[in-house]
């Protein structure tokens, strides 16, 4: 793959598409929806010359099922969409989790409910981290906050997805997807991954492989669910990723993810300039959620302010994570406008005592 160690100026969405190619993903299936169209547009141009496949499907339902089929052969494959389209994909994601199929699903989320709007929103946090579709399952969910992270976390998502045989999601938003920033197109060290001996390649010299999620025999499904649960537990042990900024000795910790973490970081710097002991905690893995790290932080810092582009979703995980005597406050902005760092600073001052 052509990897340029020099900085290039690209959109967040393009960074994801580049990372996919650099990760060996040559199969893309999707349906147009704003604000993620740069991804299919880039890949429709660049995949065919590489011998890859690009299908503009008739719907997100078809996209996710094309992805399911491609993934079943052991190939790396992906789709991307935005909130309403991701809703349509939930059935397929549930089947992939149940059939233990790896795949990358990118949600450059927009605002809802319903058709909502195309402005940035973090209203899909619950859907992404709670499974979204039917049944007792989880997705690996990574939340980038820079264009560089759109690239790096996409590479990581492919590896984690293969490692756990589980779908992984990049949860971005219109802000990071449409923003241009310098990118170093250098792929992270690939993980050592287990062989895909489960893949459907034709039963040549072996017994047929089956990929399914239907288990009707007595006890079978319960056993299968516990097996899936074990994977999620392993993710909780091994895959937690976060960024903490000035949290040591902090009196108040702002918790935010993705685009909101950037606004919040500037607010934290402004607060520090005014002499307040404030830090930032940014979960990078939304599932698995860094609950133990937050708990440990809450032994010293007793004030938490969760800032989100919604009316309060991740704040529930923050409340579940921190020590019982910690106070958790929330500042939310439903879609339509973004808070300035100064506005976040005002909120910090409201609760800092």
């Amino acid at each position, binding site marked *: 793959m052509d990897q340029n160690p020099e900085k290039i100026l690209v959109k967040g969405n393009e960074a994801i598409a580049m990372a996919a190619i650099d990760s060996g993903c040559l*199969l893309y*299936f999707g349906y147009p929806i704003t604000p993620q169209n740069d991804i299919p547009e880039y890949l429709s141009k660049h995949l065919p010359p590489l011998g890859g*496949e690009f*299908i503009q*499907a*008739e*719907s997100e*339902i*078809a996209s996710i*099922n*094309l*992805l*399911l*089929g*491609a*993934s*079943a*052969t052991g*190939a790396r*494959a992906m789709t991307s969409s935005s909130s309403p389209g991701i809703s349509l994909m939930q*059935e*397929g994601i549930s*089947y992939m989790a149940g*059939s233990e199929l790896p795949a990358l699903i990118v949600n450059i989320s927009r605002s809802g409910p319903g058709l909502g709007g195309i402005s940035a929103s973090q209203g899909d946090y619950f859907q992404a981290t709670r499974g979204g579709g039917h049944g007792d399952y989880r997705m690996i969910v990574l939340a980038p906050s820079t264009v560089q992270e759109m690239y790096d976390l996409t590479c990581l998502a492919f590896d984690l997805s293969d490692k756990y045989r589980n779908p992984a999601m990049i949860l971005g938003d219109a802000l990071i997807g449409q923003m241009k920033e310098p990118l170093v197109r250098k792929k992270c060290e690939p993980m050592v991954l287990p062989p895909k001996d489960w893949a*459907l*390649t*034709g*039963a*040549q*010299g072996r017994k*047929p*492989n*089956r*990929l*399914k*999620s*239907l288990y009707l025999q007595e006890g079978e499904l319960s056993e299968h669910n516990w097996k899936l649960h074990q994977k999620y537990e392993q993710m909780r042990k091994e895959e937690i990723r976060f960024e903490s900024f000035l949290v040591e000795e902090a009196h108040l910790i702002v918790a935010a993810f993705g685009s909101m973490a950037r606004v919040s970081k500037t607010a934290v710097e402004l607060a520090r300039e005014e002499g307040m002991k404030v830090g930032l905690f940014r979960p990078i893995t939304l599932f698995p959620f860094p609950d133990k790290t937050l708990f440990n932080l809450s032994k010293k810092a007793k004030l938490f302010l969760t800032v989100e582009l919604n009316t309060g979703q991740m704040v529930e995980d923050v409340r579940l994570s921190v020590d019982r005597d910690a106070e958790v406050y929330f500042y939310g902005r439903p879609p339509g406008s973004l808070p300035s760092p100064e506005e976040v600073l005002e909120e910090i001052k409201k609760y800092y005592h």
Partner: protein
Amino acid sequence: MDLVFKRPECLIDIPFHFCPGCHHGIAHRLVAEAIDYFKIREKTIGVASVGCSVFMYDYFNVDVLEAPHGRASAVASGVKRARKDRIVFTYQGDGDLAAIGIAEGIHTANRGENITIIFANNGIYGMTGGQMAPTTLLGQKTTTSPYGRDFTYDGYPIRMAEMLATLEGSAFVARVAVNNPANLMKAKKAIRKAFQVQIEEMGFSFVEVLLSCPTNWGLPALEANRRVEEEMIPYFPLGIFKERKMADYL
């Protein structure tokens, strides 16, 4: 002594779960025979749908993937795009293909995906206990059309083969039945042809097989078999509706 009849290599040696008199087992066998005929068992990937046909991974001695209800053709397209050197087929019922999965079926045909769909049409939802299907005949009583299917309420039975034959992407489209030896031989030929079309990379191939469902039709096996001839075939005529002579790329 010559062995003139045996279980196809492509079928696993266990009893079908299908009801007595049901035609699914015959259709399964014809598909297995076609795969054996072309000696492609080790490079074939099957896609199971939701309905009575979901257990096809218990019967076919090939790699099998289970698709969500209605999505088998999209899933099969994904398999094929990832592995163009494999032979990919779906086996879908009428609820799966003609109701919940009609969009996927039409667009798969329209893209000319080089896969084979075996469409099992018995005009009823078998697995869920006999509800009305998109192919249920007018006047036919089911558990959800207790007064008989009425077009003013439920519309008309859909003729999938004719519809898909109108699409440029379709290379081979046929409707067959397995209710008597003559029809069975034609069905065998059509299913074989469908796989041949895929092997020769001609594009999308589709064989609709009319099947009986004695249990949910509420008929003894013989009468159900007769109903295929007397009621189904008059509305769903047998024949080849599309046969491309050469691939688009030639």
